């Protein structure tokens, strides 16, 4: 029995109205990487929050290093050597890197903070992680990927024996992911037990030893990673077979409906030319920081542009604000749904109505309640959004359903072009397929679809044409038949060499 460092048995936990965990058991051995898998809302994060003391369990027993532990608090979990890296970044943006790493366990000398000592120690931890971050830098001024590494450093600084990572790679670029995997392997050798939660199943082959699969708050199965296949894992997660992870429909390519000429906006949007035809989905691929999001924002008028012309159905449109874009039939489903896509404190109905109030309003700006309800109900039905009622707060929905609301609010009006920025980030396999089907529906209706994605299989599986960006420029264009991962990567890393830049100057 004592080969396990963590044993959770028959854990149940309910929130008002929801049974989040039902009789779940979970074991972790030292020196293994355990992938905890399941769809959104399966209870993975909840289970790990119980283990790390964020939530208290209703029933069940937790043993850490063979000892029964009651009443875990975040502080007690830290003392036991359990560290968790939460899905949402949990750092204080105004404090420095070192201050964040030592938050809650500052080193003091008769009440006075020993800052230089903490800075030095933070520097050592960061060095151990092989990352070059100044411990005195302010966290809020670091890019998200580096903030993620600070989270990891913070977890390691307590000498964690149990390390829980909840979607640690969602903010990292591929190079940084490799570094992270290196760190994971190193910790594994040192005898750490690592729980790894991720929707990116492709990553598992590099690190996972064992998988535990959960569904609807229950434990489903556990198996050694090498004895299983992806499709088996997915069918356990979803509870049914998904025949096609990337459904594709074929449409006749029609007339040109959208064109961007010589778009410039800052150093990450340089001389962009692109066109979209009826009946096609165009994907934009590229590395983090290639300027993909910036391009979509510039087209949508969310950021100011320096130059460029935009045509919809052959007619030039002037776009200086998102308002102009929406009027011209261009809509954007943004990347960060909680920040840019939803008013989380408003109801689902209000969220869906928000961009469509021009349609919904009668004279004098009075909202037509009846139409509003119809629109919200229709959207919920068409997109099969799972919710108790359209009056619940958007915040209360799961990630996949939130994303559907963000998409749905735009589909409620007739648009010509729908731009998606990372439409499937952080949502589960089944919900992803539903989003793809939605995009396919648009394509069938002759609406132009432009979508940005960092996931190669997705971009190759769904788009008819792929535009690759690097360093603010379009460096390649491929049709779905000719695209390979290598080819896309090659274009995506086609940086201008410093030499030619100098010559240009």
């Amino acid at each position, binding site marked *: 029995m004592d080969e396990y460092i963590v044993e959770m048995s028959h854990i149940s936990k309910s929130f008002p109205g929801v049974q989040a965990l039902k009789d779940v058991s979970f074991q972790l051995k030292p020196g293994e990487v355990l992938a905890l898998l399941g769809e959104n809302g399966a209870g993975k994060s909840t289970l790990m929050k119980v283990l790390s003391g*964020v939530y208290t369990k209703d029933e069940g027993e937790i043993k850490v290093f063979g000892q029964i532990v009651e009443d875990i*608090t*975040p*502080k007690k979990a*830290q003392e036991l050597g359990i560290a968790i890296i*939460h899905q949402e970044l*949990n*750092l*204080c*943006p*105004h*404090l420095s890197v070192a*201050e*964040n790493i030592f*938050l*809650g*366990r*500052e080193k*003091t000398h008769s*009440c*006075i*903070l020993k800052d*230089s000592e903490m800075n*030095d120690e933070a520097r050592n931890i960061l060095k151990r992680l092989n990352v070059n971050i100044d411990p*005195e830098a*302010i966290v*809020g*001024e*670091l*890019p998200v990927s580096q903030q993620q590494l600070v989270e990891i450093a*913070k977890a390691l600084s307590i000498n964690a024996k149990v390390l829980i990572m909840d979607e640690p790679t969602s903010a990292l*670029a591929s*190079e940084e992911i490799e570094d992270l995997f290196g760190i994971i392997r190193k910790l594994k050798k040192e005898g750490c037990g690592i729980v790894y939660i991720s929707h990116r199943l492709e990553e598992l082959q590099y690190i996972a030893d064992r998988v535990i699969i959960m569904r609807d708050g229950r434990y489903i199965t556990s198996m050694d990673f090498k004895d299983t296949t992806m499709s088996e894992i997915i069918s356990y997660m979803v509870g049914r077979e998904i025949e096609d992870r990337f459904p594709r429909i074929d449409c006749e390519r029609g007339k040109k409906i959208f064109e961007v000429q010589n778009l410039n906006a*800052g*150093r*990450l949007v340089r001389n962009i030319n692109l066109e979209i035809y009826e009946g096609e989905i165009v994907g934009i691929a590229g*590395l*983090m*920081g290639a*300027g993909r999001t*910036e391009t979509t924002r510039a087209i949508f008028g969310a950021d100011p542009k320096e130059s460029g012309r935009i045509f919809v159905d052959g007619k030039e449109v002037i776009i200086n604000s998102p308002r102009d874009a929406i009027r011209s039939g261009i809509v954007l489903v943004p990347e960060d749904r909680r920040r840019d896509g939803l008013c989380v404190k408003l109801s689902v109905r209000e969220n869906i109505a928000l961009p469509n109030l021009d349609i919904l309003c009668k004279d004098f700006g009075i909202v037509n309640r009846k139409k509003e309800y119809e629109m919200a109900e229709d959207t919920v039905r068409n997109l099969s959004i799972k919710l108790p009622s359209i009056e619940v707060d958007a915040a209360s929905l799961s990630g996949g359903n939130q994303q559907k609301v963000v998409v749905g609010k735009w589909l409620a009006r007739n648009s010509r072009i729908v731009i998606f920025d990372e439409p499937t980030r952080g949502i589960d396999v089944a919900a992803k397929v539903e989003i793809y089907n939605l995009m396919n529906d648009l394509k069938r209706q002759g609406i132009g679809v432009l979508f940005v994605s960092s996931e190669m299989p997705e971009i190759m599986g769904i788009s008819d044409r792929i535009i690759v960006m690097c*360093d603010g420029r379009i460096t390649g264009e491929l049709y779905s038949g000719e695209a390979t991962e290598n080819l896309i990567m090659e274009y995506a*890393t086609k*940086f201008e*060499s*410093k030499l030619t830049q100098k010559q240009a100057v």
Partner: protein
Amino acid sequence: MENSKKMNLWERLISIRGMGQVLTGTIGLIALCLLFSFLNPSFYSARNIGNLLRQIAPILIIGIGQGYVLITGNIDLSIGSVVGMSTMISATLMTKGMDPWIAVLVTLISCLGVGVLNGALVAKCKLPPFIATLGTMTVARGIAQIVNNNYNTDAIGEAAQGFRDFFYYGSVAGVYNTIWIALAIFLVFNFILSRTRTGRYIYAVGSNIEAAKLSGVNTDMTVIIAYVISSFCAAVVGLITCATAGMGTMDAGTMYEMYAVAAAVIGGISTLGGQGILLGTVVGAAIWGVLQNGLQFAGAPVAIRNIVIGTIVVVSVLLDVVIRTGRPRKKVLEDKTIPIQKAS
């Protein structure tokens, strides 16, 4: 370590977080002083400087209290009423013949009670700080009125002369005691905020309360401490007010909560929490005092003074917002170039 050796004094100064706004404020302060000395040659007279500093002192003290609360991301509207409560309780007790120092002790304890209540309402009961302290503001003003049956008190009398000297009239080394008190409060609370664990938690709570909680910080207690400090500062100002007037007036400290917000935000403390240093509050309070004093000297009526000071508050916060919203956007773009540098 090597880094800090390489930096010269100036670089080290501006590398302190929040120093940017303090320096901007200082420049503004110097400009105002120059302007008023031009308008009024006796601006720099020792007498006027002494008076000026004595005007600034109470604003600085309540600004420090409000600063603590603002940095945790909350607000304390009860400050002005606590000033009134402190004045009325201490004056009433002294006119009833209580020993002044025992009266001071009783006053401090009752005022700290308001701070504990504020903190508990905000941290434990999760009330919005604006509403919670709006309530205690009204209650505390009510207490100020009720302690002497809805009358201002009589003069606190001969026995309280020591008390009056200590808080207002006396001086040490040629400097009024009030100024020494403000200086001591500044030094102590600046030390706590910048060098101790409690101070670090105050920033952490204002920056991201969830992250602080998950890191094992007792966030409820941190918020309560900030409110208690705020009430303490207000109580001290109430005692100074009582010592100055030699009696208790029921409407003492009216609007002080707003003056405190003004001193804090002019000095660069963010009303959104997590940002700012108390040195800024010193500059903020000084700008406030110089404006009051200078405009008074220049013969501007109260109405004009109010308009000018109100405008300055809005403009200084506006400047801050412009600088901050201008900055992050640029930052993001710069940051995203990092992988590019790696590749080349």
